[in-house]
């Protein structure tokens, strides 16, 4: 469903963030992207919806090639890709409901959105999503009154109300405590399963990734080093991705936690 062909990104400074990435994500698959800081995980995700312009290569979403689209075509394509951010990226001075409805901006004209007259079907869907993540009572609170976990749930609603085919998730748990991290990861994976969504999740926490996803891709220096099921992430593999370290402890500890 999503296909990256020879995707390259070179920044103006000369840093080569992505070196000819080849990746294919079938419909409904949740994929975790791991790798050290600076490996190009964020750049990869942002090249897909062109928040960062790729230098060369192709991005296919279904039958459309995204890198050649003009600005209105790109806007239409972006509606099909929901994005969830590390620091939640809610517009803090808007209410929760406004933040969720901002996911429909691609479908609504400028004046309607300015006067906040969203179609009733959008409003209903927003209420349903907020209810699904347990935040219905917070709908008219301002986003900066919420806790980290609650904000990330709102971020998820904003991505889902777009009715996307694909979720791009950038470090969803990096600013959260361990328990909330798991809840958020579980929520994202459940929602993907419910709606048959594909997702690419950037994640630092290898153990957390192993717990929830079907496929792991390891990135190092802008190139794919590993692509396989989470069980195949043995210490040797982690060493090729991250470098030398005693990995046994990390993995073992996770097994125990899963067993609990």
């Amino acid at each position, binding site marked *: 469903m999503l296909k990256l062909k020879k995707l390259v990104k070179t920044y103006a400074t000369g840093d080569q963030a992505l070196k000819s990435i080849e990746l294919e994500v079938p419909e409904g698959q949740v994929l975790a992207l791991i790798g050290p800081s600076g490996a190009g995980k964020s750049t990869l995700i942002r090249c897909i*919806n062109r928040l960062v312009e790729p230098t060369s290569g192709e991005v296919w979403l279904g039958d459309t090639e995204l890198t050649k689209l003009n600005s209105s075509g790109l806007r239409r394509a*972006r*509606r099909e890709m929901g*994005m969830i951010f590390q620091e939640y*990226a*809610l*517009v803090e001075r808007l209410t929760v409901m406004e933040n969720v409805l901002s*996911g429909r*901006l691609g479908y609504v004209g400028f004046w309607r*959105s300015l006067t906040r007259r969203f179609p009733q079907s959008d409003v209903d869907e927003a209420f349903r999503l907020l209810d699904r993540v347990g935040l219905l009572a917070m709908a008219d609170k301002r986003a900066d009154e919420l806790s980290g976990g609650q904000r990330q749930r709102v971020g998820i609603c904003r991505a889902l109300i777009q009715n996307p085919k694909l979720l791009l998730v950038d470090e969803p748990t990096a600013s959260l405590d361990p328990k909330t991290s798991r809840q958020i990861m579980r929520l994202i994976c459940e929602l993907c399963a419910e709606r048959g969504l594909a997702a690419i999740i950037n994640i630092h926490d290898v153990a957390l990734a192993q717990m929830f996803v079907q496929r792991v891709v390891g990135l190092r220096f802008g190139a794919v080093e590993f692509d396989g099921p989470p069980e195949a992430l043995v210490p040797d593999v982690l060493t090729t991705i991250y470098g030398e370290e005693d990995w046994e402890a990390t993995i073992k500890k996770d097994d125990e936690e899963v067993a609990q």
Partner: protein
Amino acid sequence: MPVTQHDDTTVWHRRTFKQTLAHSAMWLGGLAVFAYCWMQISNSTTWFFVWDAPRIAGDIWSRATPPKWEYITQLGRPIWDTLNIATLGTLISLCLAVPVAFLAAHNTTPSKLFIRPVALFIIVATRSINSLIWALLLIAIIGPGVFAGVVAIAIRSIGFCAKLLYEAIEEIDSVQVEAITATGASRWQVMAFGIVPQIMPAFAGIAVFRWDINIRESTVLGLVGAGGIGLQLSASLNVLAWPQVSLILLVILAAVVISEWVSAKVRGAII
């Protein structure tokens, strides 16, 4: 470290010899410039008047007190005009400053090469010329009156408001903007949902702050004929009606204090 050996002891100095020399030269140069400036001022001053100043000041004081309180009945309309000049001027200037600020900010300007310098020039040009000069100019063009004052205040405030506003725009959180862009929103929607909510508090603060300054400035615009209480001041000065002058000065002082108080209250309520 600048240290020297004296007999057996090591002496620490704050600067090396060269630094000390450069420092002294700088101070000397500065002093010479100041002395020159002072001499120029002194040369074009009639010192006889200056020595006579205490007597004249006492004379003015005795004429100006007590203020002519009953004159206040004639000041109602001028005060209303002054308020209008400041308020309408501020409103117009805000309308003009918002687009200029968006064109001048790094992250929202459509073209860094062509449009941004123009916007920055508008900001500098309107800011560096005092509202009294703008008023002089506008009186020459559209004739004396309150309207010239309104326009003068409006033009003068563009630069000030636009500068503070574009600095606020440059400081916004770009990730929030990115998130709105990623939903497929159009350029204007990104502006309305991603940028505007973030700069609203700054905008309100700037508006009230500038309104306070404009009340001060509009009290004196009448000196050149641009309406407001300054007209009465200038008329009273021309006929040397010192009791009226002192009353007008008291009224201006009260207006300034009240506007500062209002602006502080409103800013406190917003932020």
